[in-house]
């Protein structure tokens, strides 16, 4: 089990401070949800953690190793994977090929020029397992561009799983997914609990409070509260800033 420690992380775009002195402690094996209103800087924070965006200052620490200056591919190889809020797959590849590439990234050299990759059983088998875990194995041979929105969300998850992550960064995996699809997705994530450390950004409050061990609230780039779901829900600052009294009463 690997944890993720973030210390005093900052990021500005011009005069706009998008990540403002963020510190987070994600314990090994926990599911840590980050919630906050639109424009709070959640996706920026995930991008900084995954290495897609360089941070202005502060440190990111994965299982005791400082990865602040490491580019994204290196972090993935250390076991830090992300899924994207806006589906980002290889549209001209089948679902299986999308996932098999993620397996290939960690299994052996990709400087192999002669053997056909499509029949590499080790890659395809591991990819099928990841697809099955994400609930998409029945659509393995469909081109990614032909998949539905809900299937794209599952493909995102399967690709992230196929990198064999220790820490999984999930950027709104439920965006645009509703009803039974969403319930099944939440069940799937629950099954990964204890096996993976997860950082979850999500707007679906039901999902967040069902899944999270701890919740941090991000507003204008700052963490204004962090703790057990119940404590955060009852935190007056959070209710004022984000949840609103309505939600507090309903809960």
């Amino acid at each position: 089990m690997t944890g993720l420690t973030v210390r005093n992380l900052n990021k500005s775009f011009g005069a706009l401070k998008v990540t403002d002195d963020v510190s987070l402690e994600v314990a090994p094996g926990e599911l840590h949800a980050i919630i906050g209103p639109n424009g709070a800087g959640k996706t920026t924070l995930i991008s900084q953690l995954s290495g897609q965006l360089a941070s202005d200052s502060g440190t990111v620490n994965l299982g005791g190793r400082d990865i602040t200056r490491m580019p994204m591919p290196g972090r993935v190889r250390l076991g830090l994977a992300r899924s994207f809020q806006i589906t980002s797959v290889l549209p001209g590849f089948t679902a299986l090929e999308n996932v098999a590439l993620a397996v290939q990234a960690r299994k052996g050299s990709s400087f192999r020029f002669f053997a056909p990759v499509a029949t590499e059983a080790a890659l395809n088998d591991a990819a099928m397992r990841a697809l099955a875990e994400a609930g998409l194995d029945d659509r393995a041979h469909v081109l990614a561009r032909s998949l539905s929105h809900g299937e794209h969300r599952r493909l995102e998850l399967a690709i992230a799983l196929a990198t064999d992550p220790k820490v999984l960064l999930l950027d709104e995996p439920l965006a645009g997914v509703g009803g039974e699809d969403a319930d099944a997705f939440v069940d799937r994530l629950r099954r990964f609990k204890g096996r993976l450390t997860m950082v979850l950004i999500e707007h679906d409050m039901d999902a967040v409070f069902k899944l999270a061990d701890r919740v941090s609230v991000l507003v204008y780039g700052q963490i204004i509260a962090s703790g057990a779901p119940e404590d955060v829900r009852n935190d007056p600052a959070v209710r004022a800033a984000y949840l609103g009294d309505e939600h507090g009463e309903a809960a």
Partner: protein
Amino acid sequence: MTETLTAPAAGRAPRRIAGRVKAAACLFVLFALMPPLAAALDDPFWILIGTRFLAYAIAAMALDLILGYGAMVSFGHAAYLGFGTYAVAILSSYGIHDLSLQILAGIAVSALFALVTGAISLRTRGVYFIMITLAFGQMAFFFFISLSAYGGDDGYGLTQRSSLFGFDLTGRDGALYYVTLALLIGLFALCHRIVNSRFGRVLTGIRENPVRMEAVGFAPFRYQLTAFIISGCITSIAGVILANQAQFVSPAFMSWHRSGELIVMVVLGGVGTLAGPIAGAVAALTLEEGLGALSEHWKLFFGLFLVLMVLFSPRGLTGLLEKTGLMRGKS
């Protein structure tokens, strides 16, 4: 279950690939039949012309490897043709006429040039990549313009052709033609293996979505650079053939017009298909010969043809054939 696990993607892609290999095989058979046909028609001139076609087919296919599969539009690829031609000229001026040594020399220079210019060019994207490869191509062009020992601007005539394993190709147009055809077939097989390998899948993945590739752990740069180098090396082999075909080398082989023509061949034949650019090279050069005989304004008609092609079949000749079902592309 195990069957679906190990079977390759059962979708359209494998069938389309098989169709393209079949189309390429048909082309190769036609190429092989061309010299006897030309001899029978008492038109041996076409054997020499045909060698030029095949050499450009090699170059167009090599460009497709990065343009079609890697989305790297190199506008300086004629430089590698030039390295191949001058490898012949310079080595033969020192008495080295062996074709395989000349090819190796062309490849070595091209690999070095591609390594350095590619490493710099790949820091840019899109239109900037096109412009910077053009700039490097022009630098190579002007280097050979000023190389007065080999005729500079005027070029340099070769007194004899290369020899292959001691067999002199001088005056043997048919032999040179079949050597070129053998190279084309071998290099097509090589490129076909590459694009369907682990490396090829990474290269194609970077074309589709570079950010996603980084997010699963691939650093695109090294794969793109490797493909860029491979493509440059293969293109230089075409240059070695062209020098032998014309028995003359000049910087004209590496002008930016030539780079543009290579791109036209790839687009005309079908981007990202390997077999397409081979047909594209033949089609473009046939039109050049045919229209050139009809009118001195042939480029106007060629341009018109190209516009129609891009408008009505963006996937080039390959797309046209697949649409009509001749290549059994559709499932």
